[in-house]
């Protein structure tokens, strides 16, 4: 069947930025291979000079899974997420790019769902959302949930982004689309993730969502102090005016 052949020509480059993920990188690679058995993919580890020996583990993984399936493309030090994606893409041979975190908050078992959603809808971007039925979060206290929900309502009211989870970073992009958007994004941190998806929405790219569950591995860390909230509001204002 023509459609089937076309789909089999797809290759997925999974970019995993790492910093001190010595244990998690092995786990996540195992899970990716477990859940993507009949898929043509490669894992690109962009390690920012982890002092804990993450890269040594990746080399061991390459012996198990093959150097053609696991690419180690390190950088000398922490240089930011956006540039990590750009660096990863330079070495990506797939026509689709998946970005995900290395700490197992993003579970590889959702990868087949991302892929099939894209194939069904021919979407340019498939983004994971934690905030709809079928998705969810574990490990957040009430305060964290409150700020997340408040931030989301603000963003929905003022930005009309077209997606339910703006700060999520578990996404599948058509490679050409990612290259296009990333070149115009300048923010850092989670505002960067927001900027990417909002710019994509403004440019008219077809975006679909898949519910995902998110297990926060860093229990009890309330990373949301006053300064985080200020950063968020500044980011929101920036996006409001420039997108």
């Amino acid at each position, binding site marked *: 069947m023509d459609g089937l052949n076309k789909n089999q020509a797809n290759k997925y480059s999974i970019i995993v930025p790492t910093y001190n993920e010595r244990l998690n990188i*092995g*786990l996540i690679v195992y899970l990716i291979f477990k859940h993507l058995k009949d898929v043509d993919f490669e894992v690109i580890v962009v390690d920012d000079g982890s002092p804990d020996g993450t890269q040594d583990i990746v080399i061991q993984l390459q012996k198990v899974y093959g150097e053609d399936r696991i690419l180690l493309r390190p950088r000398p030090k922490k240089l930011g997420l956006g540039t990590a994606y750009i660096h990863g893409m330079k070495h990506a041979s797939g026509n689709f790019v998946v970005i995900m975190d290395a700490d197992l908050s993003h*579970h590889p078992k959702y990868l087949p769902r991302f892929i099939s959603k894209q194939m069904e809808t021919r979407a340019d971007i498939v983004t994971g959302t934690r905030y709809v039925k079928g998705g969810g979060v574990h490990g957040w206290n009430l305060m964290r949930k409150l700020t997340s*929900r408040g931030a989301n309502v603000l963003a929905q009211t003022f930005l009309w982004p077209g997606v339910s989870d703006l700060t999520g970073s578990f996404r599948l992009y058509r490679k050409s689309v990612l290259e296009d958007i990333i070149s115009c994004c300048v923010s850092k941190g989670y505002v960067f993730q927001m900027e990417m998806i909002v710019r994509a929405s403004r440019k008219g790219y077809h975006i679909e969502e898949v519910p995902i569950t998110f297990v926060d591995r860093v229990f009890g860390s309330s990373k949301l102090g006053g300064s985080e909230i200020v950063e968020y509001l500044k980011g929101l204002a920036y996006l409001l005016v420039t997108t």
Partner: protein
Amino acid sequence: MKHIVKIFSLVVAITALWIGLLQSSVIPRSHTWLLPVYFVVSLGCYGLLMVGVGLMNFPTCPQEALLLQKDIVEAKEYLKQRGVDVSSS
């Protein structure tokens, strides 16, 4: 068109409507002057309501933490057998 332009146009349209209501006397003047206040307050209330509703219905997944632990054990076993160091230090 930039998003801010869309929002601005919306504000202009609403303002024009408000001025129109002021000019004609469809609604008593005293009420009309307060319309913007009513509008902002209801927007605020709606926002708070959305936050509250969302908070109540916040999807959680406690079982996922357990499943993840199982996956971790499985992964460690597999990797250890194949010579990958699975210690965390």
